[in-house]
């Protein structure tokens, strides 16, 4: 599979609003990411809340420009936001937002929301547009009688499906899904997941799938990258990552998935403060919470490198944590 998208040395930093004392500070939401998204694959991004997943998603779509580093789409540099070249790419690249209410226009009905991209990009008009909208409404499991409803008249999960239908309207080639299914009941979730997989199989749609629901990620993704405090700490095929997580953070994460009937037992509950991007720990950012950390870990930032054919960023993998051969 060839690369559809390549991120090289991506860094994004924000300066925070002034405090009452008039101070501002900068923090790195994304801190040096190299990542390749291959044509036709579904790449999962998981990790700590606040680790920069949504920021990375916006960067990959070119919705904001990185502070440093670059993104190549089909081998060409991503155009600057709001230029003509950038606008041309919009129909091809879509985002499914984490927060449906802020992604929808309160004054538009469901059918108008879904039809809007078709209008903006001049893709369909009149009865053809109406037909396409009806088809999308059915695809995401909404009822045709909801076409005239406004966002505030819908339940949380219904709104999320409007956002999904809208993103699919322009037949995108690349989709970033930011928590697309967490507001849906498991049956509708299964329907949407199966729909996205069909789009991958039949139309070769490429996706970056950001989610906290590891069971869904396990099911839909070919490959998964795990983020911690702005960096990728492990990257592997979905099979390998979940059956045999290597990085200590990934291990804690995979062990925390709630299992029906198991209560809170068997989980590695992480100790210590969740990390703060404005005050990054030295060395491996995970070391203050890591069971295996030693002085070395606090001193040097581990690179994402190969250990037995697996990409992980942990100094302990070389010796202490070597898996049984």
């Amino acid at each position, binding site marked *: 599979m060839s690369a559809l998208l390549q991120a090289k040395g991506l860094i994004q930093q924000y300066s*925070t*609003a002034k405090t*009452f004392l008039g101070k501002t*500070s900068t923090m790195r939401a994304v801190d040096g990411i190299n990542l390749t998204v291959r044509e036709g694959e579904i790449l999962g991004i*998981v*990790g*700590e*809340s*606040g680790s920069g997943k*949504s920021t990375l998603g916006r960067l990959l779509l070119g919705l904001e420009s990185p502070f440093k580093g670059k993104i190549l789409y089909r081998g060409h540099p991503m155009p600057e936001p709001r230029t003509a070249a950038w606008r041309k790419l919009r129909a091809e690249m879509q985002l499914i937002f*984490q*927060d*449906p*209410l*802020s992604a929808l226009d309160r004054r538009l009905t469901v059918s108008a929301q879904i039809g809007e991209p078709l209008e903006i990009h001049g893709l369909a008009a009149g009865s053809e547009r109406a037909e396409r909208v009806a088809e999308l409404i059915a695809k995401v*499991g909404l009822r045709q*009688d909801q076409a005239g409803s406004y966002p505030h008249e*819908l*339940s*949380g*999960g*219904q709104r999320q499906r409007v956002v999904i239908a809208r993103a699919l309207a322009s037949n995108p080639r690349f989709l970033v899904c930011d928590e697309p299914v*967490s*507001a849906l*009941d*498991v*049956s*509708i*979730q*299964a329907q949407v*997941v*199966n729909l996205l*997989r069909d789009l991958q199989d039949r139309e070769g749609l490429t996706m970056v799938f950001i989610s*906290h*629901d*590891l*069971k869904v990620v*396990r*099911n*839909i993704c070919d490959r998964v990258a795990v983020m911690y405090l702005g960096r990728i700490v492990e990257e592997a095929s*979905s099979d390998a990552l*979940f*059956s045999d997580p290597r990085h200590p953070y990934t291990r*804690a*994460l*995979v062990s*925390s998935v*709630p*299992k*029906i*009937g*198991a209560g*809170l037992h068997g*989980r590695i509950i*992480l100790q210590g*403060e*969740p990390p*703060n991007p*404005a*005050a990054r720990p030295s060395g491996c950012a995970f070391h203050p919470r890591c069971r295996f950390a030693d002085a070395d870990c606090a001193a040097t930032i581990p690179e994402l490198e190969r250990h037995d054919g697996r990409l992980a960023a942990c100094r302990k993998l070389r010796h202490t944590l070597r898996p049984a051969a």
Partner: protein
Amino acid sequence: MPFVSVRDLKVAFDGVQVLHGIDLDIGRGEAVGLVGESGCGKSVTWLAALGLLPGKAKVSGSVTVDGQELIGASPRRIEAVRGAKIAMIFQDPSSALNPVHRVGRQICENLRLHRGLRGDAARAEAIRLMDIVGIPSANTRFDLYPHEFSGGQCQRVLIAMALAGAPDLLIADEPTTALDATIQAQILDLLSNLRRQTGMAMVFISHDLGAVSTVCDRAAVMYAGRIIEANDISQLFAAPRHPYTRGLFDAIPYLDAGRARLSLIPGTVPDPRHLPQGCAFAPRCARAGDLCRDYQPELKEQAGTGLTACFHPIPTGSASRQEVFA
């Protein structure tokens, strides 16, 4: 008398009925899960109970908290009960936070309203609350605006705000969906501990059945505006009796199941304007018979296995995927 008692609660919007009579009791300190199809009325049930629906909503029935009736009560009465006893974590974090106010100030406002804390005392307590819900370096982030927080951080701020009032009843609508598994485990742990320490009762609305089974004593399953099954957590998950509950459980993906295609319930939920005459699930149900199509099954006790609204419940002995815990 139970702490919270919901009786025959009905809600209609523009003449279309979306809640068809909900009955539910919650004891002091009890945690009850509410699960079910998206759009079945889980949020509306509690918005109606707390008088938070828009004026066009027609609400009837009864909701009492500690013996005080909320339905039809004056906004001032409701506000008094709600302020003193009940906190709600709303499903949409961004709409519940005010984008133009600093986050810390919004928490302090709740502390002032509910506990009369001001100034440094309020600030210290707000920071402590941000701390226990896992917001890193709370004291430096106190003065930031909501857009400077990630999705999951906003959700944790809402949890902190809800806990600020030290409520007797916490209604948590999808409180952990935007959180990663490790923080989620931490929050579920926190909620369980709080319940033990303070005897807080909780309604936990979630699509994450694993999370529901972790923190709740009991759960009710809703479909098309009705409760169709209710039982103890362990019994419900071990032996779901209603065909919809069973379909829901079968749709859960499993960590070790690889990329197997997900199973789903065929068909779509009925249009509330044109509900089937009999059981609302009948058009999608593999067990449906003539009785189901003509009559509405009532929610009633099934021999030793909780409440089910079904004419042909699944026999208790039949193997379900839930018995082979993933």
